[in-house]
């Protein structure tokens, strides 16, 4: 049952990532693209624990944490750059 559920979750998360990627390609402004990147990394961060459940290993927690941290830094740096024209003043 867990295999079926994780397969379904992979499909749902994959569709979610495709929609976010479509917004990344299309987005009328830079800010839309930043939001789309934010959404993409959070979806990856949700996909890794599901993969860990499926493969029955605890190896992927750290990867998910690192993706979450780097993604947050990316979004914060982009927003700061759009706001101030510079990241570290």
């Amino acid at each position, binding site marked *: 049952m867990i295999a079926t559920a994780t397969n379904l979750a992979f499909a749902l998360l994959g569709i979610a990532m495709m929609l976010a990627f479509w917004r990344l390609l299309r987005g009328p402004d830079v800010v839309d693209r930043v939001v789309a990147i934010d959404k993409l990394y959070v979806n990856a961060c*949700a996909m890794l624990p599901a993969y860990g459940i499926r493969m029955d290993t605890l190896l992927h927690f750290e990867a998910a944490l690192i993706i979450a941290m780097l993604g947050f830094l990316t979004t914060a740096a982009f927003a700061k750059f759009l706001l101030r024209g510079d990241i570290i003043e």
Partner: protein
Amino acid sequence: MSVAGEIVVSALVVLGGVFCLLGSIGLARLPDVFMRLHGPGKATTLGVGCVALASVVHFSVRLNSPSLGGLLIILFVAITTPVSAHLVAKAALHRRLPQWRRDRDES
């Protein structure tokens, strides 16, 4: 693994996927930047929370000892998502992006 545990884990995983998909549909379909920020901002936190909670339950039941790494992911995402949404909204306000109004056509 017990049947009850399997049911809980499966339900949480699928629920997390559904929440993430809802957030992405909001991101793809809503008409302006602020709504597009609003859509995934909350749904995604719930989605990641559900999947990470599912992994906490799965490994705690399976290894017969608490494995709380997933709670760290939940905590981190719950802290950082509002902060990044706030920063991006400030950037969007700063750039004076157009806001959607009901009486105007979709831009």
